[in-house]
């Protein structure tokens, strides 16, 4: 069976067919405002040009930078209410406390801090303020926000109060999108709460976006299962992905890193992926993205995500340039409207693509439309872009020596052949669709999160691991390729017997 990988970027929707571990065909088509149109066009073009029938496709894997772009650009995020159960603990550090001011201004809805939560041994911290919770839910309903994030002290140990709060919110705020923190994170209240609130602010957009993916597929006649790629380079079923957009947050860059490794054959290198909106810089170590070890900041917000260590800067093919000041580039982007808005395509906006055309780096659109740009302005703008890239690359380097840099993404033409700190800029075939390639080669994961009672630790861990493995194989993983990626155990002193909660996560290649 063949697989289709799609990357829905802010500017372009790329699609590839992978057959026998090689790229059979690739297409690029503009992302549309409704998302669906762009995917439909890409899929139809891909199947027609490759001469492949819909029933030859075994799986469709979609990766998207949609959610991360929303946060980076501070747009399309919903206002979210925050409910934290845990007073009198942490009164001086309320929800959103360490968010960057501009994002907080967009997302912070009503904040309710209530008495409740658990001790480390599972006893209640103080009795849960159920009356206050009901009142908070009613107050949230009145403000009309369409999302809410709920966190509770020690909820990874016992999710009951978060679930109860979720029920009350469902009753009082019909239709509101609810994210509960225990579903997204582990011990570490502030970081878990941050991820929860960010997820809440993106659910509405994610549901709409993923529904559009499904509709495009249906119209093309594809009946293969639809998967959405996640931060760690694995996939999940699309309906689950819609409720947890933050899990797909870094999937675009993860896919481009994995795609760059696949296309270049390099195992160790830096990778820069220039899309329409951002340039994402990461490191490949033995063919996989180098993960951030501890604290990951997303859009300036501190999280405890397990994701590739990436630096995103607002420099893509559609990034705005100020015609009066060559030093002022981005972070706003025309995004998917590049073919309408960029000057070389007859539009009114000056973008980095226009600068590249004026400088002769690439031939697209009508060069005459940028002929009026003074040479000095073009030079200064190019130098500014070089400086932005050099600075970002410098920040991401872990060694002082020059390293090879694989340039991928639709805007790879913005990467000059020589950059400070880079030994060689490597360009690969299909570079402009590297993340679609990465999506197509995404792995399958299996997870268990289960309480084992009256079992010694080693036996419980082994049992969890083999069940996670079975889940992965059931989800389509090749048994011999399955590897353990995460393992965590939490003793539950408040339960009778010798109870241990074990979480294990494994990944493996897709079985063909």
């Amino acid at each position, binding site marked *: 069976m063949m697989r289709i990988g799609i990357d829905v970027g802010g500017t372009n929707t790329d699609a590839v067919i992978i057959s026998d571990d090689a790229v059979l065909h690739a297409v690029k088509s503009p992302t549309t405002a409704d998302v669906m149109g762009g995917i439909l066009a890409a899929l139809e073009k891909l199947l027609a040009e490759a001469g492949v029938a819909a029933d030859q496709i075994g799986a469709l894997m979609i990766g998207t930078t949609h959610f991360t772009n929303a946060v980076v650009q501070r747009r399309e995020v919903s206002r979210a209410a925050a409910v934290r159960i845990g007073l009198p603990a942490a009164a001086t550090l309320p929800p959103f406390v360490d968010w960057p001011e501009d994002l907080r201004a967009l997302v912070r809805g009503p904040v309710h801090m209530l008495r409740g939560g658990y001790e480390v*041994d599972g006893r209640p911290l103080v009795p849960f303020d159920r009356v206050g919770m009901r009142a908070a839910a009613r107050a949230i309903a009145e403000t009309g926000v369409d999302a809410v994030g709920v966190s509770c002290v020690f909820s990874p140990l016992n999710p009951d109060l978060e679930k109860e709060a979720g029920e009350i919110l469902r009753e009082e705020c019909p239709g509101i999108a609810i994210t509960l923190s225990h579903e997204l994170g582990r*011990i*570490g209240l502030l970081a878990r709460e941050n991820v929860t609130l960010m997820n809440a602010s993106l659910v509405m957009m994610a549901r709409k976006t993923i529904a559009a993916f499904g509709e495009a597929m249906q119209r093309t006649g594809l009946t293969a299962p639809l998967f959405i790629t996640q931060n760690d380079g694995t996939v999940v079923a699309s309906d689950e992905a819609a409720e947890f957009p933050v899990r797909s947050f870094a999937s675009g860059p993860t896919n481009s890193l994995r795609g760059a490794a696949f296309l270049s054959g390099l195992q160790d290198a830096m990778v820069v992926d220039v899309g329409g909106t951002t340039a994402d810089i990461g490191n490949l170590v033995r063919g996989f993205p180098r993960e951030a*070890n*501890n*604290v990951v900041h997303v859009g300036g917000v501190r999280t405890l995500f397990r994701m590739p260590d990436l630096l995103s800067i607002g420099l893509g093919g559609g990034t705005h340039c100020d015609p009066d000041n060559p030093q002022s580039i981005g972070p706003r982007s025309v995004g998917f409207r590049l073919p309408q808005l960029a000057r070389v395509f007859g539009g009114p906006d000056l973008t980095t693509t226009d600068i590249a055309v004026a400088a002769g780096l690439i031939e697209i659109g009508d060069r005459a439309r940028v002929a009026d740009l003074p040479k000095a302005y073009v030079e200064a703008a190019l130098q500014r872009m070089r400086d932005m890239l050099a600075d970002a690359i410098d920040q991401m*380097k872990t*060694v002082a020596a020059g390293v090879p840099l694989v340039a991928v993404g639709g805007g790879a033409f913005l990467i000059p052949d020589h950059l400070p700190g880079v030994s060689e800029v490597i360009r690969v075939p299909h570079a402009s669709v590297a993340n679609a390639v990465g999506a197509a080669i995404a792995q399958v994961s299996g997870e268990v999160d289960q309480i084992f009672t009256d079992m010694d630790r080693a036996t419980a861990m082994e049992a969890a691991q083999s069940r996670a493995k079975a889940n992965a194989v059931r989800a389509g993983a090749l048994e011999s390729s399955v590897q353990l990626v995460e393992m*965590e*155990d939490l003793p539950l002193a408040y339960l009778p017997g010798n109870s241990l909660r074990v979480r294990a996560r494994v990944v493996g290649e897709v079985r063909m």
Partner: protein
Amino acid sequence: MPAAPFELTLDDLDSMAIGAWILGTGGGGDPYFSYLEAKQHLADGKRARIIDPLSLADDAHIACVGQMGAPIVKQERLIDGPVIASTVTMMEDYLDKKFEAVMLWEIGGNNGFQAVLTGMLLDIPIVDCDAMGRAFPQADMTTFSICELPAYPWTMVDLRRNKMIFAEAEDWSWMEKMTRKACTVIGSSAATCKSPRTGAEVKSSTCLHTVSQALRTGRAVKEARRAHTDPVAAVVKSEKGCVLFRGKIGDVMRRTTEGWLRGTIIIDGLDSDQGKHMELAFQNEFAVAWQDGEVIATVPDLICLMDTASGEAIGTETARYGQRVTVIALPAPAILTSERGLKKVGPRAFGYDLEFKSVFPQARGAEVSR
């Protein structure tokens, strides 16, 4: 000559958070939350004034504050400055005497910040010293205990504002036992004001200038990051330590018992340590490091687990499978490696039948003057 007083800037708070987390040797809790709170206080115009302990009058009346409990609890319940500050006013009420300044109980981890928050909130100077020179899990593992200073009275406040006074204790071991029980009852996390000290006691019986050490360590990490050089190497150089092991965490086992976090971490070797294994045992802080069954380092030498790439310290409660780490050792203050010191903070005090053999041949074990 005592050093001139200085005020912590925003950048200093950041350096201190990085440095104190490293000196915490895996314990003391992540300083981030209290750093965040200190930042808010600074923005509100409150000041963190640091004074040299050598500038204190012999009869100065000095408070000493710290959190006790399991670090994992602080990850969830966080910490509120007003609660720790309230232990000091409670002690003032109890003794009917105002404090002139506040010193740190332990520099390591989040606890390094408790005196800073208290100083900011009560507007009193913070003394540049602590009673551990690192972090330790018990009250009897302090310079005060080593020097046999009075162990009482203590005040204790929990987040529900349950308040306790421990009026008298036979010795530090009894104070430890009593307060630990109380701490466990209130959720394995408690704010405490320890027995007050005179200026003379502070000068003779603490680890001096450890706030400055944390600032220096943090700055070394930040400078290395800026220069893209190895931040772990920068710390080793700045604090005259050495690298013990490089690898990837293969297993973490943790248990919260009796108000402590205990367990072991197994590290599988990478690079020049390929094929080797290191095991770290901890009781809040790292106590012993074995390499393939052989003891490599023990308390009171500082055993620090660090993120190989970023140079960030990794706590016993945040270590997890797959992390790329470097284990380093830093020399302990001489007061801890003295004969009397080792009785309180050597490997036997942690239940290991091992002689202390410093990683650092130059450790002299100088006797403490009183």
